């Protein structure tokens, strides 16, 4: 799942993770993503989450997902321009597993997914 209010950024991330073999669903903010999760029979393996979004931001989404047992297996990765140390700590404390700062390369996303065991190590997008 790719969650970002920018269609351009969703497209960039979609291209990267599609090449890695993932099927992708998209949401434009945290609220849309939560609604989408509620409607899915099978939760996604991983969610790539922007921070700064209208309606429900990425941190609020992470907190909401982590409060629900049935979504516990979803790996949450922040993909954001927010690079302040305190904010990174907040996101990780709320339940995010990884953190990527924009701008990123395809290799950076691939490397993080490999660290999380979601793609084989050494995979290049």
């Amino acid at each position, binding site marked *: 799942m790719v969650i970002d209010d920018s269609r351009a950024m969703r497209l960039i991330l979609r291209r990267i993770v599609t090449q890695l073999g993932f099927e992708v669903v998209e949401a434009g903010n945290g609220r849309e993503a939560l609604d989408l999760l509620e409607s899915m029979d099978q939760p996604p393996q991983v969610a790539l989450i922007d921070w700064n979004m209208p309606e429900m931001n990425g941190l609020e989404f992470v907190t909401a997902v982590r409060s629900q047992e049935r979504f516990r297996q979803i790996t949450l990765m922040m993909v954001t321009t927010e690079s302040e140390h305190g904010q990174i700590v907040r996101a990780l404390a709320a339940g995010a597993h990884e953190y990527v700062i924009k*701008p990123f390369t395809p290799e950076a996303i691939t490397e993080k997914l490999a660290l999380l065991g979601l793609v084989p190590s050494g995979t290049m997008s």
Partner: protein
Amino acid sequence: MTSPTTDDLQAITEQVWLSYLDPEGTNPFLPSEQAPTMPCVIAAVSVTGAWEGHVVMSFSTEASKKASSALLGMEDEEVTTDDIADAVGELVNVIGGNVKSLLPDGSLLSLPHVATIDEGVNKWPAAVEVCRLQGSWQNEPIAISVWTSKSTG
């Protein structure tokens, strides 16, 4: 309090171009004296909190189309105004976020605002320019500037 410099803007812009607009490194943003003239597309994010000001990108109309088509994987002629608002809004969001990383902790970044300016002068009342990077990409002018509110400058 240190402020961002033109060198900072150049380093950030190079990274953004390599990540999103020029991944092969064959068509970089080239600093120059060239600045966009009217009509142009303005994309801005505001910083509030510990530091207050704006990060502003100005594109020639053609540059905004080229940047949008590159980001969205479209032909230039297929790009709509909504595409431009989304794509250049994301560019200024990423550049603004990286500028914010140079500012004091406790600063917050707004969502991007994008506007087309047909004539006149683009003004940022109560703000003064801190630094500016001008250049061209695919022979079209783009400028990036950082403005601080007079109250915190």
